[in-house]
C-alpha cells in the first residue's frame, strides 16, 4: 500500500495533563483554540473534525464544532480505547488521501471519570482480573521467564520516562524518580509495581492535517505522514498469550505495514513515542517494532542512538485514554518541526508513533518525516 496523496501535520497543541475533572467539551476545545490563536490557520479551512474519546456523551464532535465555531462537512466521534487517537489520525489521513477532505482537525480528549479502560468489563474471559495491570503482569512474567528480563530493566524505563517528563511543562508528573523508588513502590500485580504503571488522567490534544496543496498555503513547516500501519486481531484476551509468543502480534504487523509504506527501516527512526502504559509494554514495543531483536528489549532501555518518549510517555505524562494517540502524534510532529521546546531532540528527521489498546489486541504505528 502507498499513500495516494501526501498528507501533512500542519499544527498541533496539547493541554496540561491533570488529575482534575474538567468538562470534556471545554477540555476538547482547549488545544484547538490554542492552534487557532497561535497560527495563521483560520477555522473556516477545517472541513472535517474527528473527536477521539471514550466519553459516552452523545454528539460530542458536533457540540465541539459548535463551541469552536467550525462548520465542517463532516464531524464524528471515535472510540477504540487506548488506540483511539492514532486511529482518528489515520482516519483523517485516509479522508484527505482519498480526496474527501482538504483539512481535518483531530481532537483527542479524556477526563478521568469516563476512562472506561480502567476495567475491561466486557471481556468475560478475564474474569475478576479485568484491570489492564493483570494482563500486563502476565506478559511481564512471561518475558522475564523466557528472556531473562529483570525488574530493574523494567524500572529503568520508568526512571527514563519520568526524567523526560520532568522537562515537559504539560506532563502530569514533573518529578524524577530513582530506580530504588520504582523497585520499592507498592506491588500491584507481581512484578508490576505502582511506578511501573501509567496513570489514567484528564487531558486533550489537537492535530490539524492537510493535503499537500492546503499545507503549502497554511504553513512553511509541514511534517509529513509517511506511513501508517494498523492491525486488530481480536478484542478479548482469550486469543492472546500463547505459549510460543511473548509479543504483541498486532504491533508487529502494524509496524511492518508502516515501514513498508514509508520506505523506512527501524534504524532510520530518530525519535519515537511508544505506548508505555506499563514499563513492560515499552520493552516489548522495542522488540515488536523491530528496534531490537526479540528477547533483547530489556537490554535496549539504556541505548542512546534513538530518543524514546521524549515528552515522558504515558508513564511520565499520564494516560488520558482517548487523547493519548493524538498527543503522541502531536509530540512527534512538534519534534520533527523543531518546536518541541525543552524536550526537543536535536537533528531528528524521522519519527514513529506506536499506540495500542486492550492488551495489544489492536495496534497502530505511524511513521512521520520532514
Amino acid at each position, binding site marked *: 500500500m502507498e499513500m495516494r496523496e501526501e498528507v501533512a501535520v500542519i499544527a498541533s497543541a496539547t493541554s496540561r495533563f491533570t488529575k482534575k475533572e474538567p468538562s470534556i467539551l471545554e477540555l476538547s476545545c482547549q488545544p484547538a483554540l490554542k492552534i487557532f490563536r497561535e497560527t495563521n490557520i483560520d477555522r473556516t479551512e477545517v472541513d472535517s473534525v474527528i473527536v477521539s474519546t471514550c466519553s459516552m456523551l452523545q454528539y460530542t464532535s458536533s457540540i465541539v464544532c459548535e463551541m469552536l465555531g467550525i462548520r465542517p462537512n463532516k464531524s464524528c466521534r471515535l472510540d477504540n480505547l487506548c488506540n483511539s487517537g492514532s486511529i482518528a489520525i489515520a482516519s483523517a489521513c485516509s479522508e484527505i488521501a482519498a480526496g474527501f477532505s482538504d483539512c481535518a482537525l483531530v481532537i483527542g480528549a479524556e477526563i478521568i471519570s469516563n476512562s472506561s479502560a480502567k476495567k475491561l468489563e466486557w471481556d468475560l474471559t478475564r*474474569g475478576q482480573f479485568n484491570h489492564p*495491570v493483570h494482563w500486563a503482569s*502476565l506478559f511481564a512474567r*512471561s518475558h522475564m521467564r523466557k528472556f531473562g528480563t529483570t525488574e530493574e530493566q523494567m524500572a529503568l524505563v520508568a526512571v527514563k520516562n519520568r526524567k523526560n517528563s520532568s522537562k515537559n511543562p504539560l506532563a502530569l508528573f514533573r518529578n524524577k524518580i530513582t530506580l530504588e523508588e520504582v523497585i520499592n513502590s507498592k506491588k500491584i500485580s507481581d512484578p508490576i509495581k505502582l511506578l511501573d504503571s501509567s496513570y489514567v488522567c484528564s487531558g486533550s490534544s489537537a492535530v490539524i492535517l492537510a493535503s499537500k496543496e492546503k499545507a503549502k498555503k497554511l504553513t512553511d513547516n509541514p511534517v509529513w505522514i509517511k506511513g501508517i500501519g494498523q492491525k486488530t486481531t481480536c478484542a478479548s484476551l482469550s486469543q492472546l498469550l500463547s*505459549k510460543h509468543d511473548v509479543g504483541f502480534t498486532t504491533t508487529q504487523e502494524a509496524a511492518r505495514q508502516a515501514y513498508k509504506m514509508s520506505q523506512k527501516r527501524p534504524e532510520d527512526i530518530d525519535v519515537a513515542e511508544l505506548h508505555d502504559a506499563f514499563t513492560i509494554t515499552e520493552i516489548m514495543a522495542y522488540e515488536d517494532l523491530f528496534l531490537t531483536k526479540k528477547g533483547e528489549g530489556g537490554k535496549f532501555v539504556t541505548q542512546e542512538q534513538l530518543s524514546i518518549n521524549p515528552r515522558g510517555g504515558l508513564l511520565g505524562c499520564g494516560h488520558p485514554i482517548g487523547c493519548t494517540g493524538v498527543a503522541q502524534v502531536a509530540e512527534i510532529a512538534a519534534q520533527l518541526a523543531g518546536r518541541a521546546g525543552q524536550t526537543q531532540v536535536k537533528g531528528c528527521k524521522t519519527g514513529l508513533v506506536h499506540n495500542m489498546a486492550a492488551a495489544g489486541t489492536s495496534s497502530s504505528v505511524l511513521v512521520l518525516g520532514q
Partner: protein
Amino acid sequence: MSRVRLRKIRTPVGHLIEYTTAYNMSRPLKFGIVNIGGINIIGSLDLSISPSVGMKVKMINCGISPNGTPFYEFDKYVKRRGKS
C-alpha cells in the same frame, strides 16, 4: 457469527500458560491464564498449589459475583485412579 461454536467440555481441564500474584484485590491472589480447549481464560489458582507453566489445572468453580463480574477458579488436576 459463522465462527461461533458452542462446545460442552466434559472435564474442564487445561494447561497453565502463565501465572502471577495480584495484590490489588481484597487479598493477595494467585492467578493465571489457562488454555482450555483453545480458549484462554484468566482465573484464580488455589493457594495451596505451587503453580508451574504447563501444569494441568482443572476448573473447580465459576460463576458471577454479586457485582456482576464473572470468576473462574482453578486447582491442580489430579487424574483419578480407576477402581481395582
